[in-house]
């Protein structure tokens, strides 16, 4: 789990299966993500895209196939899972900031209690990343005093403070008012340009076009289409993808 780990993909998913009761959420998913690669996953709601990225840090347990993250296979070994989660940051649709802590404390708690960093170092790191997401002046406020866009940027900073090697984004802009989407996407673009490995579930096709190395379209628990953005937007082969794109891009 060392950042100097030599080779191998960041994430390798082989034959992944996932059921919720009788509902087949993911069907034989195969996906490999290289280090530094940026993946955008899109698809209609209920297509399994959130479930897929939640399997990468084991917020969901898969019931078939293999998920290997940074060389470690995810299984029932709790120590393995906690180790992986330290290296995989996640940003949620509804931010999920801790409401009983200030913005600064939100960013400091995990490095302090999980990575056992001293308080002073954690604070320096937290302030640096708050600077990076352009809200250093909000450090002493509570999450509920911020706008949605600001909260989501704090959530990104909170994840970055753990200095993860992979970042997962689960519809980070879906709960935001339109005027706040840009400020969050800007931060994500910056992050991408610095070489972070990113897997983003999003419908922001402009973002996909700008930063993605590959765009993946999912429907009914399957990967239907997988292509670099140019090819994806101009010459997709599948009927369902075309239909989806016309809906997302149409207006």
């Amino acid at each position, binding site marked *: 789990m060392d950042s100097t780990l030599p080779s191998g993909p960041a994430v390798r998913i082989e034959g992944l299966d996932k059921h919720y009761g009788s509902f087949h959420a993911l069907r034989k998913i195969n996906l490999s993500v290289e280090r530094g690669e940026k993946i955008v996953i899109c698809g209609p709601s209920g297509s399994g895209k959130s479930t897929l990225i939640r399997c990468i*840090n084991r*917020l969901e347990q898969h019931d078939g196939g293999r998920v290997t993250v940074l060389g470690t296979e995810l299984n029932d070994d709790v120590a393995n899972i*906690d*180790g992986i*989660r*330290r290296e*995989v*940051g*996640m940003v*949620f649709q*509804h931010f*999920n*900031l*801790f*409401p*009983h802590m200030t913005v600064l404390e939100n960013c400091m*708690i*995990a490095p302090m*209690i*999980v990575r056992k960093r001293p308080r002073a170092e954690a604070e320096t790191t937290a302030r640096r990343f708050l600077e990076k997401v352009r809200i250093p002046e909000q450090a002493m406020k*509570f999450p*509920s*005093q911020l706008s949605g866009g600001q909260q989501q940027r704090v*959530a990104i900073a*909170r*994840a970055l403070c*753990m200095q993860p090697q992979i970042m997962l984004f689960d519809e980070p802009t879906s709960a935001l008012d339109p005027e706040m989407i840009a400020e969050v996407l800007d931060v994500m673009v910056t992050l991408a340009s610095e070489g972070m490995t990113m897997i983003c579930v999003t419908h922001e096709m402009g973002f996909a076009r700008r930063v993605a190395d590959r765009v993946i379209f999912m429907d009914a628990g399957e990967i239907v289409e997988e292509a670099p953005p140019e090819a994806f937007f101009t010459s997709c082969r599948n009927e369902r993808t075309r239909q989806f794109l016309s809906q997302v891009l149409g207006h």
Partner: protein
Amino acid sequence: MEMIVVAPPAPGRLEDLKRRFFATPLQALLSLISLTIMAFIVWKLLDWAVFSAVFTTGGGPEACQAAAGACWSVITARWRVILFGLYPFEEQWRSALACVSVVVMTVLSCMPAFWTGRRIALVWGAGTGLYYVLMKGGVLGLPYVGEEAWGGLALTLFIFVTTCLVGFPLAICLALLRRSDLPWISRTTGLIIDGVRSLPLISILFTFAVVLPFALPQWLQGDKLYRVILGSALFFSAYQAEIVRGGMQGVPAGQEEAAMALGMSYWQRIGRIVLPQAMRNALPATINQFVISFKETSLVVIVGFFEILASGNAAYGTGEWRFAYVEVYAFIAFIYFVFVFSLSRYGAYLERRMSVSER
């Protein structure tokens, strides 16, 4: 175009009263009648409690009984019995100090500055330790006084505080076990909680005080007092566990997920993320439960402990003060009120303090 909004002038206090209570002649009449009745009651009470009351023991019980108002002399004469029960008279300063130590400990642990694991453990360890040494003696030249002689306010406070100290962590454990993913753990815990809740407190106290000694080997029994405290802590924890669980249900699932995604372990998630928020949600019900427990300490009289209410009975029940029970009960009610009211004001303070960060 700009609109100028002018707020209507705020009505004066007097005008507000007029509007509320004297709007129509009938309303005015009703208001006046109620006002007269209230004034009459307040006057009668004051007259009884203050103006016509006797405060000194100078005239003895007879003079006191003859007076038109309250006979507070009984308190002057017997306050030591009420506060300290059967505790040896010459040693009662120890009981008083023990009360102070418990109260100081409680007040300190209510202050946010003491809310770190080490400080709170220090305060509680020192507080209960001091209480125990003072009450029991046998060391430092203090004569030994057995638990059976403890009583009055000192005993009430001790039972209440230890019930909470033991019961609260137990309640959190029960709540966490009930939330377990393993069905046999959560069901068993549920059964225990429901079982304890379905029993009357009196029967639990009776079982722990009287029945348990038959079932346990000698060395496990401990003094009756501690068995009774254990029983009342168990009862407290069953109710409090459900309150805590309710508070946890109010914490969105996303909170725990975010904590997981940051790599926090189970205990870190529970201790740093879930419980602090759950306790906020559960605060009003928790204060309620504390208040109920404080008043329920009076039930230990059935297993032979002279807590404050029973000591009060003893204070007027012997001989010459027999007529003055109203005054004794009023005094005890006042003591209960002081504690319970402080508790609920503290609850209100906590809610205010927490709402600052919610908004």
